[in-house]
């Protein structure tokens, strides 16, 4: 009795009740594909968060005004708060004091609506800054040019805008060289930045960047800086750079203890760690849900195989009476269960890949190869494991009892 022959018996057994075979396979298929799709959604969302953070730049640090604490003491020291100034930004560009900082740029934010004829746009980020801002914030100009230090020194009213702002103001027209009025002040567009996509809640392409002098002169006036953006030399030395920034600013702001600092540092790397760990929890949660459905599929196989064994008890008796060894009966039913789970698993993998092509709740799923192997492997194991009990029951039926079964 060779294996091929037993497989043929098993296949014949499966074709006896096609509907039942189909439904069992469907159960496994849904289990496997949901494992693949749901982990792909989890993976996709964590990838999306990571990408948007990468675009922000993982080696950039933001310095903002304000104390790190809240409550009575924070309010008590707030009287002593020294605002962030251009001079602070300049100090953070001094390689002697901050050797691990590549560059720093001051940011003066404004809230302004820009008008071009009948089109208007209120950029989410409307900032006056230095040219070094572009690299520190990971923004590249793809059309036109950057503004220069000379533009800053001269206070020229030129601007680089993001894609969303450009579309809102100019539609499909080329914005380069055109002039828009922002808060009533004319600015000439000299460049547009590469599309960044949204990072969290803000649209990274709703962007309007101009020389800080121009913004301060004509819109905000000479106010404290909103922030200073600092770029560390690499993401590895971000922590070192952060310590150096603190040393410089502590001296400049005459901070005596760490608790009385009048500024705060925001590090993208720590944001990244938080978000990726939270999206990992999300993925595990989804995988658990999917795993349960796979388990349910497995129990479905057991159920069907048990019913099949009971239904075919008499047939098993006949086979035993005409000389079928126990091992052959066992193999036949095990192979039936394995075929069910193999086919279901394979269809599930296909279904999982197809399903992962669609955007699900705003997330583009990214299939994890490990989940495919895991889900497929588990489904086959489930077939063997859950099929094993009914199969051994079938095999150990005594022929005399099986034959009496009606």
């Amino acid at each position, binding site marked *: 009795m060779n294996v091929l022959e037993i497989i043929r018996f098993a296949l014949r057994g499966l074709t006896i009740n096609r509907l039942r075979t189909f439904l069992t396979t469907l159960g496994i298929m849904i289990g496997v594909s949901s494992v693949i799709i749901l982990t792909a959604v989890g993976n996709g969302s964590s990838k999306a968060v990571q990408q948007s953070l990468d675009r922000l730049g993982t080696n950039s640090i933001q310095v903002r005004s304000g104390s790190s604490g809240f409550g009575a003491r924070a309010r008590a020291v707030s009287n002593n708060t020294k605002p962030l100034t251009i001079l602070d930004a300049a100090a953070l560009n001094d390689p002697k004091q901050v050797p691990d900082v590549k560059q720093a740029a001051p940011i003066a934010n404004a809230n302004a609506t820009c008008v071009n004829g009948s089109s208007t746009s209120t950029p989410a980020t409307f900032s006056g800054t230095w040219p070094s801002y572009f690299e520190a914030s990971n923004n590249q100009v793809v059309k036109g040019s950057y503004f220069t230090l000379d533009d800053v020194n001269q206070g020229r009213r030129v601007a680089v805008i993001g894609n969303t702002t450009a579309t809102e103001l100019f539609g499909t027209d080329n914005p380069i060289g055109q002039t828009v009025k922002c808060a009533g002040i004319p600015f000439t567009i000299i460049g547009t930045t590469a599309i960044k996509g949204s990072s969290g809640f803000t649209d990274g392409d709703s962007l309007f960047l101009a020389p800080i002098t121009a913004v301060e002169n004509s819109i905000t006036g000479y106010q404290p800086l909103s922030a200073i953006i600092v770029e560390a030399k690499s993401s590895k030395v971000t922590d070192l750079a952060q310590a150096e920034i603190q040393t410089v600013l502590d001296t400049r702001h005459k901070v005596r203890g760490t608790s009385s600092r009048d500024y705060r540092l925001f590090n993208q790397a720590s944001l990244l760690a938080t978000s990726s760990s939270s999206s990992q929890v999300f993925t595990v949660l989804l995988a658990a849900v999917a795993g349960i459905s796979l388990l349910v599929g497995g129990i479905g196989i057991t159920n069907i195989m048990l019913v099949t064994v009971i239904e075919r008890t008499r047939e098993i008796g*006949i086979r*035993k*009476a005409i000389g079928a060894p*126990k091992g052959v009966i066992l193999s036949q039913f095990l192979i039936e269960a394995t075929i069910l789970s193999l086919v279901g698993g394979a269809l599930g993998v296909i279904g999982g890949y197809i399903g992962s092509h669609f955007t699900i709740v705003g997330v583009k799923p990214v299939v994890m190869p490990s989940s495919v192997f895991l889900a497929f492997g588990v489904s086959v194991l489930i077939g063997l494991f859950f099929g094993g009990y009914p199969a051994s029951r079938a095999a150990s039926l*005594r*022929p005399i009892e099986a034959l009496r079964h009606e």
Partner: protein
Amino acid sequence: MDNQTSNASVVIDVRKAVKKYGSGESAIYALAGVDLKIYAGEYVAIMGPSGSGKSTLMNMLGALDIMTSGQYFLDGIEISSMDENALSVVRGRKIGFIFQSFNLIPRTTALANVELPMAYQGIKSAERKKRALAALQVVGLTDRVSHEPTELSGGQQQRVAVARALATRPSLLLADEPTGALDSKSTEDLLDLFDQINAAGRTVVVITHEHDVAQRAKRVIRMRDGKIISDTLNANQGVSA
């Protein structure tokens, strides 16, 4: 075949067979010490009312059940001490079963049904098919080989079962109420077939409660309450225990 020489060789040798159900005072003896010898080439009918132990004896002889005590030699091999796996081999090679309810595998052609026991013995496909077709020819069903059981009459199904039993060339053809589900015409055909098979030298044992079936056998054994109460020859052929 070896009809003449086989008179001496013993196919079935049952010694002090006891089958007990339950234990203690409530124990029931389905077989209460049966001694039985059947020689090669014999045609034996085992008769008795229900509860006489004839079905239990048939299950013992067919290696479908194990006895509580006693010994059973089939073709000189003691099988009363074999385990289930060894018994399945014995059933496949030594015994051809014919049941009252035919017991063909459903949704499977006559040919595949006849091939099945040979498949379990590991006989190669071509040889299997050749022997199966030959067996189907013996029972006169050459034109029905690719029919499934539901497409065959009761008599035809039983003949497929006979072909299946013959194809493995067993030492013993064991039929349990083979005519119980057949009309009189089919019964007559089947009994003719048994005569023919026995005439070719095959040992045939038929369990029945019908007198006209038993009349066709050469030797009739009657049972009651788990014991053999008579063992007679119908004609002047064969031997008695």
